[in-house]
């Protein structure tokens, strides 16, 4: 096991940031921690990177205990904190050089590992880090976190505030790093990124809702889900919310995801009901649950 977490709890003053969290991350796994802001993702990352001490529970990273062996962990993990944490007034190259030096290595020594990523920012190596675009900053931060060839990589919301193109590139890079034998624990608030991980943990309000592979997690959703659309979204949502048999009503892009309380749900009945509400162009069709549906059902 690359990371083991058992019964970790952490509170700040009167806020319970983490409540009895336990899970394991296997060697060479790409593990996703999926949840909104304030769910406790950053706190967990800080405990695992030895920056915070949990109130209860134990954890190991790469075989080392997060409290007693914290120095060993600091030598063998790479960490990319939530907000951009590089020196804005240093150039790309100076930043990378600095982090290589403090980890007692050089850019050349581990160039293989970062090559794929670094070539993309190399044209801007003399630019100050503060003047890079969001996607570039994120790539530089990843290079800096990788420069000492860590065994385990911690990435705290690396794709927040980054556009879809850069996000896609970033996930491609993570996949390649995984092939090079690095264990990766990544957190994200974007549900659509969950599908890219080997396994995910859904986390909300300091509690783990579910842990499994992305494919298995959506199977846990037992109720049939229906895509509903009509000519007026707002009235559709209101009408569905007023419908006495509804179990859940969530807007989902151009549709509303609807589930019914009854086992013998009849689409025609719902359509007739919606027609009485003066809605037109009504479409109802069965659809499959997404990770987001699962998350909302569990968090309900």
């Amino acid at each position, binding site marked *: 096991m690359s990371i083991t977490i058992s019964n970790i709890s952490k509170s700040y003053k009167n806020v319970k940031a983490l409540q009895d969290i336990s899970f394991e991350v296997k060697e060479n796994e790409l593990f996703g921690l999926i949840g909104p802001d304030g769910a406790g993702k950053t706190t967990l990352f800080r405990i695992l990177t030895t920056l915070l001490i949990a109130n209860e529970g134990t954890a190991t990273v790469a075989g080392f205990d997060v409290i007693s062996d914290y120095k060993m962990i600091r030598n063998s993990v790479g960490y990319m904190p939530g907000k951009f944490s590089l020196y804005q007034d240093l150039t790309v190259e100076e930043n990378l050089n600095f982090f290589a030096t403090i980890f007692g290595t050089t850019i050349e020594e581990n160039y293989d590992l970062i090559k794929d990523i670094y070539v993309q920012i190399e044209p801007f190596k003399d630019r100050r880090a503060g003047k890079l675009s*969001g996607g570039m900053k994120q790539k530089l931060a990843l290079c800096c976190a990788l420069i000492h060839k860590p065994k385990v990589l911690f990435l705290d919301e690396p794709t927040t505030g980054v556009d879809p193109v850069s996000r896609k590139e970033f996930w491609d890079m993570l996949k390649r790093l995984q092939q090079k034998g690095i264990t990766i624990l990544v957190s994200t*608030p974007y549900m659509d990124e969950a599908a890219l991980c080997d396994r995910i943990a859904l986390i909300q309000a300091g509690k783990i809702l579910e842990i499994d592979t992305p494919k298995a997690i959506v199977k846990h959703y037992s109720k049939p889900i229906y895509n509903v659309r009509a000519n007026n979204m707002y009235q559709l*949502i209101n009408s569905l919310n007023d419908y006495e048999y509804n179990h859940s009503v969530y807007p989902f892009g151009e549709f509303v995801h609807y589930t019914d309380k009854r086992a013998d749900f009849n689409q025609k009945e719902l359509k007739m009901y919606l027609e009485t509400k003066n809605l037109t162009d009504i479409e109802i069709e069965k659809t499959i649950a997404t990770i987001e549906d699962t998350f909302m059902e569990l*968090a309900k």
Partner: protein
Amino acid sequence: MNHNKVIQVEGLTKMFGDFTAVNAITFDIEKGEIFGFLGANGAGKTTAMKMLIGISNPTSGKANVAGFNVFTNAEDIKKNIGYMSQKFALYDDLTVKENITFFGGIYGLSIKRIKEKSEILIQELGLEKVANTLVGSLPLGWKQKLSFSVSLIHDPKIVFLDEPTGGVDPITRRQFWEMIYKAANQGTTVFVTTHYMDEAEYCDRVSIMVNGKIEALDTPKKLKEKFKAANMNDVFLKLARG
């Protein structure tokens, strides 16, 4: 001027020195429409939006917002629009009520009107219990819903939302969108920028900016058909990668 068109933009351009941040963009937005304004980091979204809300002067082109010219009547525009951004929304060290009163005040609402409004608003959001609590101690989702309501306090014709739902949990995000639908249904035009491509699918129409130009503008459904993509994320990737 067509009264149903609350935003009319024609050839709007902004240059910074030699660099063209916004390159002759053209579009119209109708009353009550939810318009998604998408683009990669650095594509020119923020610059374009700043021109529309009257805080940045265009280099050339034409733009009418809420019936006012962005070149000559920027001050009138500000009175007729609401604005909410993820970065700055409310004062954390003021209570819910104080925030509402303050923002009502800067938009020139009468004391009586502010009182009415804040009662309605607090009741609608279910914030009765925390009305006198500091905003800083509220959960992020509540803050953002409150912030949206506050941006509508002066019944603006258009509300501009700059990445309003970043980091919010999925349920709260949906409640937020229900509020947006409600506002649009009551005739307020909603102009929203976002990085969440699934959120783009909630919009009536979306535009996608690439390198300062609007490369696509249509309903999400038609865009997906046109680009033969399963979702807006794929549409975006196809466009931005060229």
